[in-house]
């Protein structure tokens, strides 16, 4: 799974740390870190919580082109 650069950019744009985001949506810091590193594939529920917290859409944060799936 590739790194989630879009998530990291959206988070830094809002000037919040992984810890702040984790606390805001009720998950551990390791989970946010793992999602950004592409090590964990979150459920749609968690994706939505992240989107709401960062005022972004699912497309903006989690969309991948089909070819990215294999990389």
């Amino acid at each position, binding site marked *: 799974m590739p*790194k989630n650069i879009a998530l*990291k950019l959206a988070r830094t744009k809002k000037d919040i*740390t*992984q*810890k702040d985001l984790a606390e805001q949506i009720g998950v*551990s*810091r*390791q989970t*946010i*870190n793992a999602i*950004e*590193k592409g090590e964990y594939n979150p459920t749609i529920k968690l994706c939505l919580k992240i989107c709401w917290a960062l005022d972004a859409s699912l497309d903006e944060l989690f969309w991948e082109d089909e070819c990215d799936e294999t990389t």
Partner: protein
Amino acid sequence: MKLHKSNLDEMQEQKLLKIEHTCCWIAFGGLLAAMYIQIAIGNGGISYIGGECIVLLIMSVYLVTDCIRNGIWDRRLKPNVKTNLTLSLTAGLLLGGIWSIISYRNYHKLIGSIAIFAIIFISVTFLVLAVLSALTAIYQQKKKQLDDLAEKEEHEQ
């Protein structure tokens, strides 16, 4: 024959994990129940329950070490003194109660059974409290280590 590709889709994989999870706790409870029954019918020696003890010990050690290694404590319980005290008192009461009943059934001495209860209750409570306190300290240390690592990676990315 290809073995590396899973035959299950995402949902089936989640269902299988849930089934395996339930099965794990059935095995855990079953082993405890089997050991209790063996002890209750007077077959409490190592030759009778040694196998169950070893399997239970391996399961417990794996469960605890892997959870702590991943910075996980419990779904609902918090790793604090109050919880540790409640759990150790419960374990003490439970084991003290079981052994005092067994003692009374075997020897019909009320004072002896009460003494057995007191001894088992105190020793189990202190032992469980000590183990839980040590594990809580290790868990908190590991969690801090994981948080520090995540922070370091956050700045590196």
